[in-house]
């Protein structure tokens, strides 16, 4: 990953973090708000590789834990795991269309919410009733998918491919 790309990812995660807790609470639909940090991390996992996405997810989750005054490390753990698994699932799909990140975001979101609730339950802090939880997972995940349709193209514009990648793309274009 290029230096530019690293800087871009740091700025993106920071920006998504600030948006997440200052603006997104006002964009609630059916009582749910999109999880921008998770979407950004999954998009990174799609564009780069699962482990980079997991690191981004870890950082985003860590920031989220710091600000939300919940047990430090829970969001970091669940986001990192969910993003990593979503990134691994990418290999199963033989498509690179716009719908790939959307599907992965949907799966990743469901996984993340489930991991999160299970972790909190294990820590004795899970308070959401099962029915409420079921009604909460799907809207949140679909909202994240909507967010992915905005975030993925934006992040693609700033992908900053390294020289070798650009050369490969050019050679593929000339031969193909």
């Amino acid at each position, binding site marked *: 990953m290029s230096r530019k790309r690293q800087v871009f990812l740091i700025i993106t995660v920071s920006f998504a973090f600030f948006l997440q807790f200052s*603006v997104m609470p006002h*964009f609630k639909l059916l009582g749910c708000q999109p999880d921008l940090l998770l979407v950004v991390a999954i998009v990174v996992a799609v564009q780069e590789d699962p482990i980079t996405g*997991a690191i981004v997810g870890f950082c985003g989750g860590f920031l989220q834990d*710091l600000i939300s005054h919940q*047990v*430090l*490390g*829970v969001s970091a753990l669940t986001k990192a795991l969910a993003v990593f698994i979503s990134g691994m699932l990418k290999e199963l799909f033989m498509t690179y269309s716009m719908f790939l990140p959307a599907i992965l975001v949907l799966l990743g979101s469901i996984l993340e919410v489930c991991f999160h609730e299970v972790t909190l339950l294990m820590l004795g802090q899970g308070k959401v009733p099962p029915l409420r939880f079921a009604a909460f997972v799907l809207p949140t995940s679909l909202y994240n998918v909507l967010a992915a349709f905005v975030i993925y193209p934006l992040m693609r514009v700033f992908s900053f491919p390294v020289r070798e990648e650009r050369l490969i793309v050019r050679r593929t274009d000339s031969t193909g």
Partner: protein
Amino acid sequence: MPVKPSKVRRNRFVLIVIVIVCIALITLYVRESDSGPIHKIQNFFVDAVSPIASLLGKIFKPIKDGFVNLWHLPTLSREKMELEKEVADLRRQSLERKELEEEVTDLKNLLNWSQQSEYETVGANIVGQSPDNWQRLMIIDRGSSSGVKKYMSVVTEEGLVGRVISVGSNSSIVQLLTDSRSAIGGRCVESRETGILEGCNSETVRFVPMNEEAVIKVGDTIETSGLGGTCPAGIAVGKVVKVKPRPRGLPRLIEVKPFVKISRLDRVLVIIVPEPESVILKEAQ
């Protein structure tokens, strides 16, 4: 493209490190007290990022408001109707309250006057006024059932209003002192000269002194003299606003502006004791 084994190993290693770090953080956090270092870091972090979040909140406020409005669009028109109705209700309540306040003030003034005065009175509401320009009358909601009799004086705390000229069981007609047919005995307080107060269907009444040479000046106060036998003596009537000599031996034109603002009256008092004892009444009896 197949992933290199070294890269797979590196990925696994990084993931394990992440998981271990997270579990360590969770353990430390759960085990420490609320005043522990991790909690302190959390507090410090919140303090540090709050200004930036506030700034971002301000920047994105138009978008945020737009979204909120969009989401609430279906309910906005209903809310608008409800609010309009509420505003109308509140406006009506405010008017009613103002009216009640005025009524209370009037009643307090009337009560004070009736307590201070030597006369026995009965309060009445004005329920109607003369419908044409040829007379100055008003209808009150008290009649013979309340002890009201013909020729009784009608007053407010400001002064004389007129006399009762017709009595029903629950309503009466009052002839205002400005009515052209009204004639009440009056006296100038300053010069003690007596005369007759005649209405002329205008805002003022005319004072005709018995003695044409009497000293009457602008600003003098006129009260009832009690000589007519209908109105008790000493009820304030008004102030002299014009004294105009007339040629060829005609009496002076002395205009008196009543203290009572007749157009603004809502409630009055009828003096029921002492009863009127005019010659006309005695003759009638």
